[in-house]
């Protein structure tokens, strides 16, 4: 009998216990995997190549202060700036105030928009149709799917910040690399209805010539308006989005805390099982020793059993977690970066193996150094 077969047989000896342990490990590792993918999406990913080339300029004081639109022409003179578009947050709701009917809406410059977001694929005819229709709007595929919107459909947004309820026609559906769940419509629509909104965009999205130009452009913009009536703050698109995550509170500590608690709890589950499994086999260990098995072999036997349990349990958790991250990712906006990757998968599997290893090490060490006589005398 090979060592691996022995390990499998031992693991299957108390099927119920093994199954319960695996389920416990599965649930915890599933949670941990989701947490890790959130961490990665928020703090490690840089977004698509184009997104890494974009910076966002806003009023230094806060997002609720507007920028004068003449800034656009001055920013264009900065070397390294390829294109820029003014974006204003409309903040309306669709149909009613239920949270399911809230999504991001920006009013923008339809011509410049296409230059700043080249990776958002859109049918050229649809783009032109939108650019020609001042009451037109475009949405991304995820949003269109959520509300079952078709090109040509009319929708009404309800006001919140600006006192106007836009009646818009969907002229096109764009396909971003990651769901944005964002609607864009024309600046003119709001500016004609609301006099104080005229020439007062909330932010400028700037496309830089290269990822290397990003920091230099950001500094140049902020330097340009340092002493202007509206000083600016310019940061990468990713940093801008992360600002909203950080507003939720100390998200990093929250994820780390829960992740730590989950790993430790799983460790306890697995360790408890291994302690029980090894204790009831004390006499067998003694027999194995009599037969001439080395301490190292006995150690491997138990540690292997624990790792096998945790790995299988872990896989049962990691796979559903992968599906869950896909759901979270489809929520769009800054959730779209939360995705499962092969790298994350490997890390999750390693964590599972590590938990199995650590949980078995103490009880199996004790078992392996037990004197044969005591082991044989043991009453289980």
């Amino acid at each position, binding site marked *: 009998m090979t060592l691996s077969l022995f390990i499998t047989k031992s693991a299957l000896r108390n099927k*119920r*216990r093994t199954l*319960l*342990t695996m*389920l*416990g*490990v599965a*649930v*915890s590792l*599933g*949670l941990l995997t989701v947490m890790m993918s959130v961490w990665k999406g928020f703090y490690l990913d840089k977004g698509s190549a184009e997104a890494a080339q974009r910076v966002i300029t806003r009023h*230094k*004081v*806060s*997002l*609720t*202060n507007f920028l004068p639109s003449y800034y656009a022409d001055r920013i264009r003179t900065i070397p390294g700036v390829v294109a820029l578009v003014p974006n204003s947050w409309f*903040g309306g709701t669709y149909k009613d105030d239920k*949270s399911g009917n809230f999504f991001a809406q920006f009013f923008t410059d339809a011509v410049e928009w296409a230059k700043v977001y080249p990776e958002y694929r859109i049918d050229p005819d649809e783009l032109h149709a939108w650019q020609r229709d001042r009451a037109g709007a475009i949405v991304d595929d995820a949003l269109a799917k959520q509300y079952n919107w078709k090109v040509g459909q009319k929708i009404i947004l309800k*006001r*919140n*910040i600006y*006192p106007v309820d836009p009646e818009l026609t969907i002229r096109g559906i764009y396909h971003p690399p990651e769901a944005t769940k964002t609607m864009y419509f024309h600046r003119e629509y709001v500016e004609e209805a609301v006099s104080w909104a005229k020439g007062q965009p909330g932010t400028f999205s700037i496309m830089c010539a290269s990822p290397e130009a990003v920091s230099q452009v950001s500094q140049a913009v902020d330097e340009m308006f340092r002493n202007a009536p509206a000083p600016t*703050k310019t940061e990468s698109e990713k940093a801008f989005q992360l*600002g*909203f995550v*950080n*507003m*939720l*509170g*100390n998200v*990093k500590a929250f994820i780390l*805390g*829960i992740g730590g*608690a*989950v790993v*430790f*709890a*799983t460790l*306890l*589950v697995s*360790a*408890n*099982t291994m*302690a*029980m499994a090894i204790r009831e086999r004390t006499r067998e260990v003694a027999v194995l020793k009599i037969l001439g098995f080395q301490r190292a072999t006995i150690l491997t036997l138990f540690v292997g059993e624990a790792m096998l349990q945790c790995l299988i349990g872990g896989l049962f958790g990691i796979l559903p977690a992968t599906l869950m991250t896909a759901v979270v990712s489809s929520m769009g906006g800054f959730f779209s970066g939360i995705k499962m990757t092969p790298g994350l998968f490997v890390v999750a599997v390693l964590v599972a193996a590590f938990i199995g290893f650590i949980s078995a090490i103490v009880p199996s060490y004790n078992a392996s150094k037990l004197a044969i006589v005591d082991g044989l005398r043991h009453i289980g």
Partner: protein
Amino acid sequence: MAIPLSYNLRNMRQRKSATLMTALGIALTVTTAIFIMSLLAGLDAAFRASGDPQNVLVMRKGSAAELSSGISHDAAAVLKTLPGVARDAQGQQMASGELVVIVVLPRSDGTGDTNVTLRGMTAMGRELRPTVHLVSGRWPADGQREVTVPTSMTKRFINASVGNDLRFGKNAWRVVGVFDAAGTAHESEVWADVHQMATEFNREYGVSSMLLHAYDKASATTLVQTVIDDQRTKLDAQLETEYYASQTKSGGIIRVVGIIVAIVMAVGSSFAAMNTMYAAVAYRMREIATLRVLGFSRASILLSFVIESLLLALLGGVVGVILMLPFNGMTTGTSNNVTFSEVAFSLRVTPGVITTALIFSAMMGLIGGLLPAWHAARQNILTALRG
């Protein structure tokens, strides 16, 4: 006849390491649950305690928050003279036109900037909020670049203490006082002089909102209707208490994520408890059969093991509560979904939170213990005695 409780307690002590590991696992789950519940309890408390039932808040129609509201000086003048607005001892109308903007302040823990609400008012605004009082220093003088900050902010933001300068708007503002807002939403606001703010933020055309004080609670409701019906101003009004109550949904994301995390961890812990209880039953097969021979019924065996599982889980629950108690009162912040600015609040491990946590742990014990106990009660006496 029931099996005495001491039987279960002795058994738990006999199998110390299994009991401890299972209980500790449950304790970790309970800690997470308590942490999330106390966050939400603190957040709820911050909003629920806010507002005076005699105060009426007036904003532009369609505005969900003071930030997106605007009232012209003309309309503000009309509001002051509405019937139902109380007068103070000096005969002044108790009405306060206020400016609300958001400013960015750097956190002192080095994790970046946070949006903070800056509220501009006159002495009347403070008169309308008697729960807010000065702790040290003084209130901002009229026409000066001065602010007072709440006690909760002094440690959490750089330079947010008396004598230092906060940088926002066009230039530096001197901190001249610290106030205590008794745990209300004002605990997250910096207060300044309304006229100085109007110049600083180019808001000379009007105020953000207007706070009116009614003679009593009943007339406050009437005053709300008077404002809504007024055809000259065309504004919206609500009781100040209602305005803050509607903002409690700010904890939405924390609530959803928290509940999911707590439930998932509880499922894991229930499996662990089940494992331990199955083992406990397996070790005691002969004992159980003996108990049956002595005349204890199946029901009392079932009950006894369920109780043991409950005790195990409650031990974990109590350890979890003890681990989390030191965090009671810790101040933290989150973003208000309505105003996009920070809400400071304290973690509150309230009796309600503790009760819920203990019930939560008992649930884990119950779910984990029921099947093994059933298994124990259904044993065939003869085979068990021989085994």
